[in-house]
């Protein structure tokens, strides 16, 4: 056999290991892969913590009686105390949902304001519900004519972080696969590191696979760190515990394999670091903004939803939320995998047409 290339296993591990060490010493990679998602999670995790509760003002010294007791037991209600005058002013500014004044005869008056109509409606229905119940009880009606049966379907409690954190995993994955990979390759090409490696008995494919492997380790660590910080600091819900975590990690690797093609493509069409930045951002930023990172795709205008839901990051974000929110395993994500696979094929074809070693 002529011109047989030497075994590439050791060169592969050399490239993978030392690329990984270099990646971790690169401030931009560590910032966008770890710090940036965690900062976002901290900010939004705190913002979203009491998103759905309503606040009712109760003047000082009036916090007693059965109506007050019943209302304050409702989980979504928080009570704010203060002088009646201050509370009414806050009400008119829309900072309170309502002000409840109970006079000495236990007769309640509810003050609302149109400054915050949705909250006003909520507080009216809640308070009148409590009052109705009390009336029935006082009238000794134990078996009302109409009775509403309420059954709870979802057994889990979700908060904003449960929606937001998976989006951050998607973002970290996207920047590591596209921005960091394209910058890394262009840099190695420009500084002739690749040329020096080509003078050794190492194949081009080995270099690419080694680079890919280092990104894979990086992405697994990113996902793991984001999930663990989420679980221990922000009460992120792992529906089936370790099983869900494993599914998320597997999905991250699948996402990386799909997005890496775009990283190679950007490295192929950009000649230097200066053109790589805008080209990489062209792939990363629009997806970051619309593909379900900050808000569900359903919240977009309906005419744009079909387009947005076909973006690579949308497939990934939908898939990861099916795992973390709905508790599905990855074998239920076939449509998303087909979407990611189609994008991967497009990306690798484009990359193979444009990528040059020199």
């Amino acid at each position: 056999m002529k011109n047989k290339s030497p075994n590439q296993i050791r060169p592969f591990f050399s490239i993978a290991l030392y690329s990984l060490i270099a990646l971790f010493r690169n401030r931009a990679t560590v910032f966008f892969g770890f710090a940036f998602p965690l900062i976002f999670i901290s900010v939004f995790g705190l913002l979203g913590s009491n998103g759905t509760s309503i606040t009712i003002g109760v003047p000082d010294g009036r916090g007693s009686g059965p109506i007050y007791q019943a209302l304050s037991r409702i989980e979504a209600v928080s009570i704010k105390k203060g002088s009646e005058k201050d509370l009414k002013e806050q009400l008119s500014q829309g900072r309170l949902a309502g002000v409840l004044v109970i006079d000495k005869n236990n007769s309640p008056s509810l003050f609302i304001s149109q400054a915050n109509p949705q909250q006003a409606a909520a507080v009216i229905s809640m308070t009148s519900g409590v009052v109705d119940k009390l009336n029935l009880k006082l009238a000794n009606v134990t078996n009302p004519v109409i009775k509403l049966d309420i059954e709870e379907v979802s057994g889990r409690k979700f908060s904003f972080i449960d929606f937001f954190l998976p989006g951050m995993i998607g973002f970290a994955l996207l920047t590591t696969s596209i921005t960091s990979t394209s910058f890394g390759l262009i840099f190695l090409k420009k500084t002739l590191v690749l040329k020096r490696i080509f003078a050794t008995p190492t194949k081009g494919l080995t270099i690419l696979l080694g680079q890919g492997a280092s990104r894979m380790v990086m992405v697994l660590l990113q996902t793991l760190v984001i999930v663990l910080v989420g679980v221990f600091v922000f009460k992120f819900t792992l529906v089936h515990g370790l099983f869900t975590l494993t599914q998320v990690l597997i999905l991250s690797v699948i996402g990386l394999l799909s997005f890496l093609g775009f990283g190679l493509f950007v490295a192929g069409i950009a000649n230097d670091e200066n053109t790589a930045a805008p080209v990489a951002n062209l792939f990363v930023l629009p997806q970051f903004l619309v593909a379900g990172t900050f808000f569900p795709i359903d919240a977009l205008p309906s005419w744009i939803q079909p387009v947005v839901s076909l973006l690579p990051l949308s497939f990934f974000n939908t898939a990861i939320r099916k795992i973390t929110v709905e508790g599905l395993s990855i074998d239920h994500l076939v449509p998303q995998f087909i979407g990611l696979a189609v994008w991967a094929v497009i990306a690798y074809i484009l990359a193979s047409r444009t990528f040059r070693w020199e």
Partner: protein
Amino acid sequence: MKGTRTIIQVENLTKNYEDLVAVDNISFEVREGEVFGLLGPNGAGKTTTLEIIETLRKPTSGKVIVDGLDIEHDSWKVKSSIGVQLQDSGFYPDLTLVELLKMFAGLYQVEIGDPIEILKKFSLEEKNKSYWQKLSGGQRQRFSLATTLIHNPKIIFLDEPTTGLDPQARVNLWEEIRKIHAEGRTIILTTHYMQEAEELCDRVAIMDQGKIIEIGTPHDLIEELLATGFKRKREVKKATLEDVFLQLTGKHLREE
């Protein structure tokens, strides 16, 4: 030590880039154990010639045999058996010298033992934890030479090894090259410093516009020129300004 065995054979080598002829039908041979210099002005085709022999570029036509191996049919074996120092090669800027040596040992698939011992040979042992990007020009060239020799090749290619170095670093690198040569290795280098060629090379080929216009030992080429009645415009002094400079500032290395 200098045998008469031909270790590199270049026959009718041509390399075209679109409408530019970078290397124009050149032939030469390098003998085992000699230091062979490719001289010429910038753009003469020295680097292209070297990179074709190193299997980094494909020739347009012609034949090159390196130590019995055809560079086109046995490129992998050629890569494994030669040591290459490129004109401006880079290394991962965020890796330490020890990490880079281990990485290159992996790429060449050799065992290197203690990397510090290798760094010692090139007076870099104190820099073992430094990142490549923090090295001075001379240190970079010495480190590059260390990676060139990591798999103990018997043929070494050095492309403008001393360009951009200060006189101390250049004199020091010449010492390193002499040491490598004394170990019995064949060295092919390019340079556009004639003093360097005279100091180091057993034989030189002078290239211009893609062609080799003369081959011989430095002594013979000078004698030939003198035989034509050539005279320098000014009588040569016994020392040069560089000698003055090195006498005044010392030959020891400066670490920037």
